[in-house]
């Protein structure tokens, strides 16, 4: 089957790849582009482990067909740090022990970034609802919520 040529900007770099039309953007990123930071936990948009930003909006990459990405700008967890300097969310997740196994962490970071970009001073409840699309089975969410609060505080201070 002929494959479709896709041009995107991923983590700041113009990136081209070939894909079958029915392939999910998640699988294209992982298999064709070699970015395995986004994870497949469910493939149906229920766990958020595959969350990425597409044109600044947080999206489950498992629910996007790869050709839909043509012409978009994508940010994955691999592009979250600024040339080696961790994003405050990454730093706060580390310092606050907000991860155990770490499989959900890339998705949480991207969803939390989308939240803080939109709402720099969220309440605990707003954080909990904004992250409700991201499942974590290890932490009970407590330390994740605290890490996002901490990162928000730090980002507002800057």
């Amino acid at each position: 089957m002929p494959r479709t040529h896709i041009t995107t900007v991923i983590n700041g770099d113009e990136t081209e790849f070939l894909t079958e039309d029915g392939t999910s953007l998640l699988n294209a990123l992982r298999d064709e582009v070699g970015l395995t930071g986004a994870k497949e936990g469910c493939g149906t948009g229920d766990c958020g482990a595959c969350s990425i930003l597409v044109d600044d909006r947080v999206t489950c990459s498992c629910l996007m067909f790869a050709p839909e990405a043509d012409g978009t700008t994508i940010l994955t967890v691999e592009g979250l740090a600024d040339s080696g300097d961790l994003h405050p969310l990454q730093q706060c997740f580390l310092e606050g022990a907000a991860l155990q196994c770490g499989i959900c962490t890339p998705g949480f970071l991207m969803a939390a970034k989308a939240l803080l970009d939109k709402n720099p001073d969220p309440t605990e409840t707003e954080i909990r609802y904004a992250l409700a699309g991201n499942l974590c089975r290890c932490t009970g969410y407590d330390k994740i919520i605290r890490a996002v609060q901490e990162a928000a505080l730090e980002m507002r201070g800057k």
Partner: protein
Amino acid sequence: MKYVAPSSVEEATSLLSASPSAQVFAGATDVVPQLRAGRPAPELLVDLKKIEELVSLKSDDNKWTVGAATPTAYLTEDEAFSHEFPGLSEAAGLIGSDQIQNRSSLGGNLCNASPAADSVPAMVVNGVRAVVAGPSGTRVLDVSEVVTGPGQTSLDDDEFIVEFEIDNMPARSGDAYLRMIPRTEMDIAVVGAGARVTLADDGSIEQAALALAAVAPTVIRIPDAEDALVGTTADDATLDAVAAAASEACDPIDDKRGTVAYRKQVAGVLAKRAVLIAIERAEQRNGTN
């Protein structure tokens, strides 16, 4: 599966007419899980999001127009829209996570034809109209006429919804949507209830609309409850009658998400609560809109 993203309504309809096994989609938030669950793959995937009018949100003096593929996040983020139709905005904001709401749309939520679609009761009570495009032009349907049964719509295979029209909220009116899910998020409604009321000058209810989701093969209106409300101030006895009418009108199924008895009982509870919120909002708007 071949993917195409037409840039005009005409291009889309001609693609659909030419390919009987085509699937239109907007956010694909239902299509992808269904394909994964084993639904036969269509030959053609028609992405409607590149058609300008399908992704838009506008208002004029009389009405709002919402492109059928507009992400529901646009609705909840739009302060004017959310002020005009707080219940519809809330319903849109209940469709899945933030991730989903950046993709899901009113058109997709309606045409997926699930009895449990959150936005549909809120659209029905607001009298939303669907502008449907097909090979021979467009036609306008009341939203309540679109879904005919679980997974079934009145649209032809080569038709799709372009946009929704919603008349501005009248003075002294308010809408509300509530749903019951076991968790706080990320669930399909076990029961959903949308309500809208318009109050008379004396504070009594002049018009009422009540619609329930997930309690019948399609979203249903509850005329008995609406009739019971009109002319009253929604005192306890009236609300009890509303609840009873709502429970009575239900024709639900037992499934993994809830039982018949539960759905009937909770339909009454949510109907009552939704009406009360709608009344409160109507009082707050107090004629000045």
